[in-house]
């Protein structure tokens, strides 16, 4: 008989769950069931799904997932409501949902249960922090069961697409460097991939001791300094922090939440992280693992660059769509978009490194619409012939002419009526000088200005070097 086990994961498409599925080698398990609210996530690699099955359903609807629980050896409970939400919503999923799941596991004698809670569950006062309270109640449901369990309490988890990270970036990147409270609360951030590794390690090594394990990254830091680390990735300045007193803010927010939750940037409860230390007291079996975990500097740099890559990718997709509409009046297929992005990596020297500030500006402008692209193209045909902007257009042209069905657009048109042909050509060609005359007064001064600015900057750099 096969010794491979069957896994049931809740929240497989979430922030931690998706990373966990990337880390898992499906060959190590007989079957992996993932309960998600929307079924299989589109970005999930199909090649990996041979023995991974996505089950669409709600935690509170056990009939849907009962057959899968009954066949599972280990349940990993990651599903949770986090970030900004109404208190009822936290309790519905994090508390009640956990209770229903635990009951199902008890019913079918699931061998092991891993519950991923939060370090917030141990904050001194959680009476006004519904998220932490719901997690604490979820923990209670697990600890009071007959299951063989482990509860993980990760500290603040950092990674791309994490709500906490996005909030901290917004606070740190703005013109004012905002810090809630005195900024002295200590945090111990853990990189999401390291957390996924630890979860995988618990599953594969069978570390189920009926205990609560607190898990954090290798370093602790004050929240203000952490925000400064984030700012340093984007800017070289070190601005004075503007502290917003929590004593004043929390009661105001708590009152406003009742009516204005959709428009508020965060909740009073979420500010608890700025008030209480979010560090661990013990690491249980993961003390050694900390040595290999990402340091704060590494995780901040990695996440920021991952985000930058994502932003660049979306910018290239938008660029590809606009340029394609301009060149062949068609929407590019996913294949064309991927090729366009791939070419930017493979011929980075021509398409990225050689970019002047003016190039950057006209490319951004051209992304806006095919009409702007037309103006820039006409101007660049004579005044910026070898620019990166034109190279990008030529690249897309090359990709389109070699891909079906777009290549047919370039096929010769059969036109037996020479007079009509000449009129058509004449009309199109005569539009060109008109657009050229329009583009020169718009782009010309900017072009000249950028050249003058570049020359002054170059001279002052030279003088400074001397």
């Amino acid at each position, binding site marked *: 008989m096969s010794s491979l086990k069957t896994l049931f994961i809740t929240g497989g498409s979430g922030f931690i769950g998706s990373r966990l599925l990337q880390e898992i080698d499906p060959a190590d398990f007989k079957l992996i069931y993932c309960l998600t609210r929307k079924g299989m996530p589109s970005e999930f690699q199909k090649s990996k799904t041979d023995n991974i099955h996505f089950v669409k359903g709600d935690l509170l609807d056990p009939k849907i997932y009962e057959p899968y629980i009954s066949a599972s050896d280990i349940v990993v409970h990651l599903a949770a409501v986090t970030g900004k939400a109404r208190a009822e919503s936290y309790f519905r999923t994090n508390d009640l949902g956990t209770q229903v799941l635990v009951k199902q596991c008890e019913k079918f004698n699931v061998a092991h249960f891993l519950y991923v809670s939060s370090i917030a569950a141990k904050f001194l006062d959680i009476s006004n922090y519904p998220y932490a309270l719901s997690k604490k109640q979820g923990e209670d449901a697990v600890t009071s069961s007959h299951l063989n369990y482990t509860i993980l309490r990760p500290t603040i988890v950092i990674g791309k697409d994490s709500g906490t990270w996005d909030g901290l970036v917004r606070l740190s990147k703005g013109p004012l460097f905002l810090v809630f409270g005195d900024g002295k609360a200590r945090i111990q951030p853990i990189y999401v991939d390291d957390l996924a590794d630890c979860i995988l390690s618990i599953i594969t090594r069978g570390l189920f001791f009926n205990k609560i394990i607190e898990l954090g990254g290798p370093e602790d830091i004050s929240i203000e300094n952490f925000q400064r680390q984030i700012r340093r990735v984007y800017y070289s300045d070190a601005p004075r922090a503007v502290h917003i007193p929590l004593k004043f803010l929390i009661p105001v927010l708590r009152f406003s939440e009742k009516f204005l939750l959709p428009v508020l940037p965060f909740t009073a409860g979420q500010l608890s992280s700025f008030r209480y230390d979010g560090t661990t007291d013990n690491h249980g079996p993961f003390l050694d693992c900390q040595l290999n975990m990402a340091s704060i500097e590494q995780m901040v740099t990695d996440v920021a660059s991952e985000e930058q890559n994502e932003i660049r990718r979306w910018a290239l997709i938008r660029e590809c769509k606009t340029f394609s509409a301009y060149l062949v009046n068609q929407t590019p297929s996913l294949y064309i978009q991927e090729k366009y992005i*791939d070419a930017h990596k493979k011929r980075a020297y021509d398409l990225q490194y050689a970019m002047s500030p003016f190039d950057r500006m006209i490319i951004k402008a051209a992304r806006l619409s095919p009409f702007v692209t037309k103006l820039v193209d006409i101007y660049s045909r004579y005044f910026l012939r*070898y620019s990166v902007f034109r190279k990008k257009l030529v*690249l897309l042209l090359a990709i389109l002419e*070699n*891909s079906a069905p777009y*290549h047919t657009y*370039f096929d*010769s048109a059969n036109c037996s009526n020479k007079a009509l042909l000449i009129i058509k050509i004449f009309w199109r*060609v005569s539009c060109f000088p008109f657009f050229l005359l329009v583009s020169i007064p718009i782009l010309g001064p900017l072009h000249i200005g950028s050249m003058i600015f570049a020359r002054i900057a170059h001279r002052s750099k030279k003088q400074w070097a001397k």
Partner: protein
Amino acid sequence: MGKIVVVGSGASGVHFALTLLRKGHQVIMLDVGKLPPKIVSPEDSFIDLKSGLDDPVDYFLGANYEAVIFPDFESEYYGFPPDKNYVFSKLDSLLLEASGFAPLMSFARGGLAEAWTGGVYPLSDQDLKQFPFSYADLEPYYAEVAKRIGISGQQDDLVRFYPLHDNLLPPLELDTHSEILLAQYQHHKNYLNNSLKCFLGRSRVATLSVDMQTRKRCGYTGRCLWGCPTESLYTPSITLNHCRKYPNFTYTPNMYVTHFNFNTNRRVTAVIAESLDTRQLCEFSCDSLALASGTLSSSKIFMDSIFKKTGDIIRLRGLMDNQQILVPFINLKMLGRKYNPDTYQYHQIAMGIQCDRYNEYIHGQITTLKTAQIHPIIQEMPLDLPTSILLFRYIHAALGILNINLQDTRRDENYLTVEATPDSLRSRLIIRYLPSPSEADRIRKSIKIAKKALLRLGCVVPPGMIHIRPMGASVHYAGTVPMSENKLGLTTSGLCQSHDFENLYFVDGTAFPSLPAKNLTFTLMANAVRVAENAF
């Protein structure tokens, strides 16, 4: 019979080797021999590839998009397809520095002609004026090579420039564009022949118009530029495969020949090659050595051998190459017609012009562009890109390009030499090329006549689109150790036997004393057969 080592598997090397093998000699061929990628969907046509391949962009533009031609000061109208990258891929072992010359070297199995366009033109007595033999001496070898490789062509007005030899196959099927050009030529023949001294006819191409042994005739799939999938277009690797069937032939690939050893009697005793697998030097003893690795490589081996033995750095003067000019044109009679990609893609018509001013022959090949990449042409049009695309759709079928070749002569200021490097194993090849003072005037004059001729043929040349290619781009290199009747050092006999080492032969372009305008590959092959027949 002695053991003959041949260096290089290009057009000269394989025909030299095959002739020797047929005579019963033992032949060892040393070659780097980079291999081509596998042929993709051989049954499919050019258009089928675009819609049928899983990743057509990878095939047409390359995994690293190397075939995308970006706007640049020196961009070409068409680049090499990614499938042929292996032909020009560089070798770490070769160090070189060039001035006034853009050298292209090949380490492919079959050499540079693996990426040629198949132009095969016999040299006339006027072309061979500086050679120690005439057309009559070379004619049997042209015929022999024609029999081996298959040449399509016909007797027409160009016979005055390309003598007619035996074993010529019927010409290939003409495309509509070329038919119109030839019809226009007939219409304006008087003016073109008498006033411009310009003649038009079918080009001679090493492509089969009928089946020949195991090779099939051209299937007109439109894939010539992307690599003939059926071996209808001849490449030297076909002859190499033929050679490998002989028991007296040893082919040793992955060998980069660095130099040869010679004794005090100035006889070559062994060839030294670096194994590209093990990076070890290997020694191959020989009774005779034939250098056939192309003018640059053969000259370097020769210079390095002398340098390693004596410490003398020599300078080989007289490097030649054909100046090439690309003249794109639009045939007005083809405007608005639908283009047909399922035709032969390389030149079907050749142009010969007798230029009185320099008393020289100007050689031209007309290619009607059909399946070349479109983006290099569109980006050069003086309009915004969508308008250029629209215009291009109407003129696609009407586009053509005249590729002009000009002759070159040996001049002392153009030379090859080597330079010592800290690595005792390797030297650096130095290439210096200076155009002749009259070069600019020759180019101008040639363009002027070509434009006049094209206009009379009903074609216009779009302004600003003529491209003068850099020296070295034609890859017709020759002349550094020329044939000479005087027994001077750094020259060869009429049978390409070195005057410095009695058992050394230069069977490639190195021994050519002049470089006519016509593509030299056919003559390289015929001359190699001549040397093999008469010297061994």
